[in-house]
């Protein structure tokens, strides 16, 4: 029994397990943690017990040793009930854990991954800065070698899991910094909470959506990091960054899928029940268009995402066209589907109780985080210009 979305029995069982967990334990807290803008640490630890935090990590380092499609499945299923919480999961498991597992030395992996796979450490990744987002190679944070250390100066902005509440930093981060004069002279470093010179600049509050994932500005002032914490060769981090952006974008697209699927289920059920002018509103052509268009677009996106994840090898780069493509298509698709869901529910859609209001707010982030849709259009067109024929 295998299909595009569940290529093996293990994938299917994984989906069933995560869906059951999401419906029983994640759904119930989603509204509350969104309202109070809080990270649910206890729930996060349960993901560790289920083996989800180190989903792509080799069992030797405490992980589950699964592939890109397994990660895609988990993000789709969790996001169908709580995208905010899922974003915190993604920042930890994809941006920190998977990144280190693919690019770190065995010593670095042994030092940090086992505790990250259980959730004892909460991780994140810092690429964006106050002054450089899309133009990531314009980053200004610097790392200067000084004996056995690097001295880091600068700031990182919008870092998911940068803090876990208003005042406390997350535990460990992969931070990109400039180690040379050329635009691409970047290196990455493991930086732990408690390193002298590393502090929480601010917790970023009042986000439109994704409120269950904490976001922070991180500040580095003469922060001394042991040279042993450099991941990969000096000046060679751009490739690591590009490679990890691929799985990041595919899993962000998977989050859009979860949002879209849930919105379709909600509007479909509502439109069969709700009556107006003496009949269920799903008898009206305009409502039918909202529902049918949404389903068609969702399935197109879903097929594209799994087609891409099934081919994605975590250790290699070179899938940028489609890893950008799935996120470009699915982020806007899910935003539109959420919008239609609100429309189908009328006034009820506009309030929190019916969930689509929250999903609509969360959906918007996916057009920005992990690369804006304009960045995807830029990257894809550049890649396509070198591809005269589409096979």
């Amino acid at each position: 029994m295998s299909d595009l979305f569940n290529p093996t029995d293990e994938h299917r069982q994984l989906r069933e397990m995560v869906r059951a967990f999401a419906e029983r334990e994640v759904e119930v807290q989603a509204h509350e943690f969104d309202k109070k803008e809080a990270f649910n640490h206890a729930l996060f630890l349960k993901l560790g017990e289920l083996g989800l935090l180190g989903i792509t990590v080799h069992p030797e380092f405490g992980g589950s040793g699964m592939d890109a499609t397994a990660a895609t499945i988990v993000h789709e299923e969790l996001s169908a009930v709580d995208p905010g919480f899922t974003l915190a999961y993604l920042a930890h498991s994809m941006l920190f854990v998977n990144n280190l597992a693919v690019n770190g030395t065995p010593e670095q992996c042994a030092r940090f991954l086992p505790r990250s796979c259980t959730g004892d450490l909460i991780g994140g990744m810092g690429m964006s800065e106050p002054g450089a987002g899309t133009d990531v190679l314009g980053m200004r944070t610097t790392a200067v070698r000084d004996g056995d250390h690097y001295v880091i100066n600068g700031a990182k902005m919008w870092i998911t899991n940068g803090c876990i509440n208003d005042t406390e930093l997350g535990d460990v981060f992969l931070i990109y910094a400039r180690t040379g004069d050329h635009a691409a002279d970047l290196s990455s470093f493991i930086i732990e909470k408690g390193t002298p010179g590393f502090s929480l600049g601010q917790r970023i509050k009042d986000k439109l959506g994704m409120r269950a994932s904490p976001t922070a500005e991180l500040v580095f002032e003469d922060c001394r990091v042991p040279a042993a914490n450099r991941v990969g060769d000096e000046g060679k981090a751009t490739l690591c960054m590009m490679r990890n952006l691929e799985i990041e974008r595919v899993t962000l697209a998977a989050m859009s899928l979860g949002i879209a699927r849930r919105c379709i289920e909600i509007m479909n059920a509502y439109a069969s029940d709700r009556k107006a002018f003496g009949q269920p509103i799903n008898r009206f052509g305009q409502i039918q268009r909202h529902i049918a268009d949404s389903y068609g677009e969702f399935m197109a996106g879903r097929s594209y995402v799994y087609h891409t994840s099934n081919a994605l090898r975590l250790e290699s780069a070179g899938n940028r066209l489609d890893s950008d493509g799935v996120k470009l298509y699915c982020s806007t698709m899910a935003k539109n589907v959420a919008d239609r869901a609100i429309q189908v529910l009328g006034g009820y859609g506009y309030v929190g109780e019916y969930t689509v209001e929250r999903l609509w707010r969360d959906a918007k982030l996916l057009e920005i985080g992990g690369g804006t849709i304009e960045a995807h259009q830029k990257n894809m067109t550049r890649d396509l210009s070198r591809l005269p024929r589409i096979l």
Partner: protein
Amino acid sequence: MKILVTAKRVVDPDSKIQIADTQTSIELDDVDFRVNYFCENAIEAALELQDEHDAEVVVCSIGNEDAIQTIRTGLAMGGDRGILVEAEDEVLDGDLVARTLAKLYEQEKPDIFLLGKQAIDGDSNQVGQLLAEYLSLPQACFASNIDIIEDGAVARVEREVDGGIETIDVDLPCIITADLRLNEPRYASLPGIMKAKRKKIEEFELDDLELDTTLKVVTRSMELPAGRQAGVMVSDVDELVNKLKSEAKVL
């Protein structure tokens, strides 16, 4: 200690059920399947005993070849190995299921045979009791707590009965059926799912077991429950009280 535990594959109760054209079974094409809830409780109980008493847990199911997935779920939760008896639902009734399980008992000689108290599809609530009868073993049905005492010779079982809890002792080997409040079933963790791939599942055909397969119960027809009647709006409390008295006759 060895525990044999059942994992029946049933239609997910959240699926939309439709009756097949024959009117004697339900349409299985567009529905989801899952492990019977009560079987999940039985598996959880078996796994807790596995931890405490170093028991071997054997997960068994009777069903078509897809029931192997239900067994895998049990193995992913922590079961040690599995047994599938292949048979389509149409050729089974509760009695034949009990006699089939009795064969597995003879083959495995477990100390405890754990089952769900009933399956959430057929709701018959017969198999555990019939099995105990066929094997002449003590039974403890609707268990809400299980303790193994006297060095593994006796199971002390709390049963939910009308109006309270009854505590009984049954000698091992015995049959125990699980109620929902027995425990909170664990999830199959991801490492568990990966490990389950390598665990052994023995497969039999129903015919291999040399049973009399004549059914004692035959399904004649099925129909969906009548749709719910629309509610009525009342204009004030007096009207409500009136209706409760005269129409609903509850006051």
